[in-house]
């Protein structure tokens, strides 16, 4: 951000001043207002894919993703209302019904952001019929494994591979619910010539889709990595 000017807005009735260009999510977070997120990760380019951070802006009937919407002067933002709560619960249910999310047999059980949010928001059942996919599992790499049936397509792994590691081994193919995370030009992970094996993809995965074989999940999901990424990101 090149501008130094400060703007003032209201989030949940609290007057907040932030540098121009700050997103609503960051403005809220810096002032202790936590908005639920899944695809967002500090240090990575905002994506706006999971729709959990939707907020209301007074004067607009539309909902805005807080992670990609810049704060504007005079904006009045509501981050928590019955309507938002219902939409967030619905978003979680859609994610849970899209692929096979069975906590009891998942490597990330108890260390999963989707599971934690479902619990926190009180999603006690999934109203939509669940889709049981048979997406390919790739364990050809020496220690990195991807189970695409657990993937929520947040693209954190792709963004960390591209922006932080600077390799862009990972990307997406196909569209909609058939979308798949792929390596290089859709190779087996073990055959990928660009993957450096840096493990960042596994570390930022909010669910149990990418994990490290032979490593405790507590080690993999170590939150320090987020800080590490932020530090690297800001050192330009």
């Amino acid at each position, binding site marked *: 951000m090149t501008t130094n000017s400060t703007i003032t807005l209201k989030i949940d009735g609290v007057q907040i001043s932030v540098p121009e260009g700050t997103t609503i999510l960051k403005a809220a977070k810096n002032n202790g207002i936590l908005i639920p997120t899944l695809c967002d990760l500090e240090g990575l380019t905002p994506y706006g894919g999971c729709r959990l951070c939707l907020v209301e802006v007074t004067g607009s009937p539309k909902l805005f993703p807080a992670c990609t919407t810049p704060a504007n002067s005079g904006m009045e933002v509501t981050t928590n209302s019955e309507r938002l709560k219902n939409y967030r619960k619905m978003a979680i249910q859609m994610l849970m019904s899209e692929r096979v999310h069975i906590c*009891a047999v998942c490597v990330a059980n108890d260390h999963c952001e989707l599971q934690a949010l*479902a619990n926190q928001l*009180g999603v006690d059942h999934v109203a939509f019929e*669940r889709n049981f996919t048979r997406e390919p599992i790739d364990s050809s790499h020496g220690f990195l494994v991807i189970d695409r049936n657990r993937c929520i397509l947040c693209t954190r792994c792709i963004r960390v591979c591209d922006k932080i590691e600077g390799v862009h081994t990972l990307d997406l193919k196909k569209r909609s619910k058939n979308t798949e995370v792929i390596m290089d030009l859709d190779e087996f992970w073990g055959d990928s010539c660009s993957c450096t094996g840096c493990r960042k993809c596994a570390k930022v995965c909010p669910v149990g889709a990418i994990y490290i074989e032979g490593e405790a999940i507590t080690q993999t999901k170590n939150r320090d990595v987020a800080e590490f990424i932020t530090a690297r990101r800001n050192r330009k």
Partner: protein
Amino acid sequence: MSTTNTTGSKVRVATVWLSGCAGCHMSFLDQDERIVDLAKKIQVVYSPLVDTKKFPEKVDVTLIEGSVANEEQLEMLKDIRVKTRVLIALGDCAVTGNVTALRNSWENSDQEVLERAYKLSEDLQAAVPNMVPKLLVKTRPLHEIVKVDFYIPGCPPSADLINYVLTELLVGKTPIMEGRARYG
């Protein structure tokens, strides 16, 4: 939804075991000494833990563990719904299908699992038995078949959560699952 019944006598409670591992029932028993308090207010009229063969009429609260995987369970669940005022899905299998629904990823999963269990794993006289209830093509959570009033997720749900839901219902309050529900 009030569970206090009209006659002022004990609340009639049933627990049912469909396709699950009995872990939820273990967790129910894990309420330990709190069961003694519960027992003052409830009467268990049907359960794998008591010797009643037929599901009784006019049950106030039924806790169901496990998903619906075969035709017998399907009929049983429909029958229970008619005879129960408050139906509670107990545990991840009843709420989501959980492990019992893993087979749903295969197209003809009812055939595939039988082949796997009875034929591929046997060398001699491998055959699928025909005296067991017919499997449904897909394993279903309870709410995809009947109306479910409350959900207690968890694999298994904690004894504390089960106790919380039951005690709230017994005093006529609606349990709040926000921040309490816990998958896995």
